[in-house]
């Protein structure tokens, strides 16, 4: 489904965290490109730099060195206001722990986004896309883990983002529920054409990607293209 157009590109990306007197090199020169409509799976062990890379790509954080470009925008030099606009207009996030607002219903959690994005589809439509039409007025505490994650995905894609960035979206779920969630991500990628990055330390998930990038110690150590993409529902772990 991917084209040759590069949507998001990182070059020589470094990120150093200072924790007290210790310097932690989370990223040590990463080159990465995401093509339009492409689904990339980032794999690697804990601490390999996956989440850091995702945060930088999504404009949640700024790099110590190197550059990130989204189409013709240089995110490296963008200030907080510009990054906020970038996230607001172009990026959808899905996190391992859903991060739903517990005091809002499923529908209202999605409306958090539709409220500030003029292009957004109605919350109901997006919730239908993730199969939650029946449970729109439930609060997070009344939903199962898988349902909560699907609300989180609905919230991420409601504004029809160009990019969908998922950080361990199945990490807190059992495999059956996890597969349901992956099916939704796959569907969004296919039907809306959203360029998607999925982080996982769960190797079998890599089979559903167009391309698999492996990180270790803050560097890209391998990159491979899947000749045939597996359907999410056929995955097993």
């Amino acid at each position, binding site marked *: 489904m991917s084209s040759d157009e590069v949507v998001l590109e990182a070059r020589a990306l470094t990120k150093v965290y200072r924790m007290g007197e210790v310097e932690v090199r989370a990223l040590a020169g990463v080159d990465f490109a995401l093509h339009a409509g492409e689904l990339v799976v980032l794999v690697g062990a804990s601490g390999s730099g996956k989440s850091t890379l995702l945060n930088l790509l999504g404009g*949640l954080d700024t790099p110590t060195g190197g550059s990130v470009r989204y189409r013709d925008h240089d995110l490296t030099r963008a200030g907080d206001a510009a990054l*906020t606009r970038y996230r607001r207009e172009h990026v959808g*996030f899905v996190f391992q722990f859903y991060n739903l*607002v517990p*005091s809002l219903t499923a529908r209202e*959690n999605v*409306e*958090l*986004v539709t409220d*500030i994005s003029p292009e957004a589809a109605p919350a109901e439509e997006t919730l239908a896309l993730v199969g939650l039409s029946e449970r729109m007025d439930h609060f997070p505490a009344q939903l199962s883990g898988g349902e909560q994650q699907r609300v989180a995905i609905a919230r991420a894609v409601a504004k029809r983002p160009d990019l969908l960035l998922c950080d361990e979206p199945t990490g807190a779920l059992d495999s059956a529920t996890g597969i349901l969630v992956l099916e939704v991500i796959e569907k969004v990628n296919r039907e809306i054409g959203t360029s998607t990055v999925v982080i996982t330390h769960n190797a079998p998930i890599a089979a559903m990607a167009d391309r698999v990038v492996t990180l270790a110690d803050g560097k890209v150590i391998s990159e491979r293209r899947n000749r045939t993409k597996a359907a999410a529902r056929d995955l097993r772990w």
Partner: protein
Amino acid sequence: MRPLTKKLWRDLLHMRWQVVTIALVVAAGVANYVSISGTYASLLGARDRYYERERFANVFAPCARAPRAIVPDLAAIDGVARVYPRIVEHGLIPMTTMPEPAGATLISLPVDGVPPLVGVVVMAGRLPDPERTDEALLLDAFASNHDLHAGEMLSVVINGTLRQVRISGIAMSPEYILSAEMGGGRGDDRFAVLWMPEAVLAAAYDLEGAFSNVLLSTEPGANERAVLAEVDRILEPYGGSGAVPRSHQISAYVVDGEIAQLSGMATTIPFIFLSVAAFLLHVALSRLVELQRGQIAILRAVGYRASEVGAHYLAFVAIIGLLGGALGIGLGVWLGEAWMNLYLEFFHFPYESFRLTPDVAITAVAVSVGAAFAGATTTVLRVMRLPPADAMRPASPDVYRASLLTRIGLVRLFESGGRMVLREIERRPGRLLLSSFGIAMSVAILVAGRFNGDAIEYLMENLFGRAMREDVMLGFVRPVPEASLLELAHLPGVHRVEGFRQVPARIRFGHAHRDVGLAGHPPDLALRRIMDLEGTFHRPPEHGLAITTKLAEILGVRVGDEVDVEVLAGSRRRAPVRVTALVEEMFGLQGYMTDDNLRRLLREEPSIDVALMTVDPSQLGELRRRLTRLPGVGSVVRRTAILQAFREQTGRMLGTMTLILTLFAGVIAIGVVYNNARVALSMRQRDLATLRVLGFTRREVGSVLFGEIVSHLLLGVPFGLWAGHWMAVGIMSTIDPERYRWPVVIGPQTYAFAALVVIVTTMATWLVFRERLRRLDLIAVLKTRE
């Protein structure tokens, strides 16, 4: 409704008890502010409107008898706008309901009944008919005290002659907002004003073509001092006893003093409440933000601006502020009306009530939201600075280090529960201090609020118990020979009789002067003693004059200085006298001499006008009957009656005051304790759950939180007792010391009461909270992600 708005309301609902308890503290502060400021503004407005509508004069000048021919001279004084000469004399009203006659001030009315200065407001009935000689307007305060109405008859002694006067109407005047007579201090029931046609009073007092009192208004920007000096100069040959400016007119003076006292209170007390509220909001919001780090992050991640997220949390506190503000304004208006009614028992205005002016309301709202913002600022700024990626990670664990308490081994003395309490205190000493401060303030408010009661009790015990020891005091209308005491001694039931002479006098030093009471005590006077604040007794100096410390301060006099004493009655003698001693008395401005020295000053034969008696209580009834029949007796006062009346009046006021303050102090204590416990529980629930898993009982787990509350009490209560004392000193210092000053005496029962109220409130709040704690499934907490 926008989803963020929904989140806001649901957060508020979720934290409703914290919201309510904090809003109540805000409300208490705002209610104080609105009621006190509102009363202040209402009284000030009432006074100013009254003065303006009724053309209140700028200068008041009494004299003995001045010809009307000098009026143009007075009018020609630079800066004088208007001159109104009138007759003011003194009469008596014998009342069947009182053993002694009431004093009456008789004031002339011009033919048209409308004085050009210092008008009269007719509340009922009509002006006296200028054609008739037996009609008068009667002062409202006196009329209502004795249930007198227009059309009824009144006996009045006018220049020594008893006359029947018809009350044509009931009236008020800005000259008598507070009805009191010079140096007399009689209550509303003993002091009357009668306004009668000028011709009637002129004939009665032989003042045709003359006046005995003149009112002047001045032009804006006029030099008041110069005007006063000129008026004095012109009136001197006619027995002028000194012109006074509006600020020293007796009613205006007292009213101004009371109003000024309110303005000081209007800021201090609300400030205490609002700072406690700000602190509570800070604690509650910091915790809320801590709990919602993930939510803040997601809002930022999906593209909400830092300012939008910040505004969301500001709105949270603003709503609590507004809630408290609205509640406080409502409560404040209610309290203000009560306050105002209390004032209107003493202050007589023809048309006033408590008014909430827009500026007070707007300030109240601004101040309550301001306090909320003050408490929230640092937290909201922290929210806005939180990088979205950071917010996604749980906050790093709090850093605990082996600290001083651990190193000196103190911590080892406690069980693990106690250790957790100690470590928490060590880690957040700021919160301990601020919470204790909150507790301390609620204790202090109670101490300061009730100290008046102790001080009055002290005053009663000392003044009435030790300094004034007579059973009955007799006041004579005119001085009588000292020999009259012998007659009194023979009355039934009288054990002992003493007497002394007392005159009103003006004491001048340099440019300053004050009108005071000057008493001449015989050396063996035992029933009335001069006592200072420490309770030490003094005798009048052998030579010269002793004055109160306050009078000395005002006049700038030191021991050894010579002051000019002018007697304002009888002979009107004027002579220099040396001040030879100072005495620090509780009440105002006084002077003391020996009876011989005063007599020499007055150039009089030995005479008295006050007689003091100790009597056999069983014969009191008969004695009173005999005393009222004695000629020349102006007043008969039983000491126990004064005491009782005083106790009743202050008891009622104090009771109300204590109730209100106890409620308010309780509100603070509840706010501090509940919010601290709630936040502590939220912050420590994992620790506490872990303790449960390890086999601690609910009670043991609860004691960790309870220990913190006890630590706040241990620090807060003693500090509050101390702070309350100083708050009382502060309040006392705002009272005009020319009127009264009493020592800041706080009895152990007040300290005990204040401490007890706060401790009991704290314990009750804890019990309520413990119930909530019991219902909380601590173990389930461990299964959720931080």
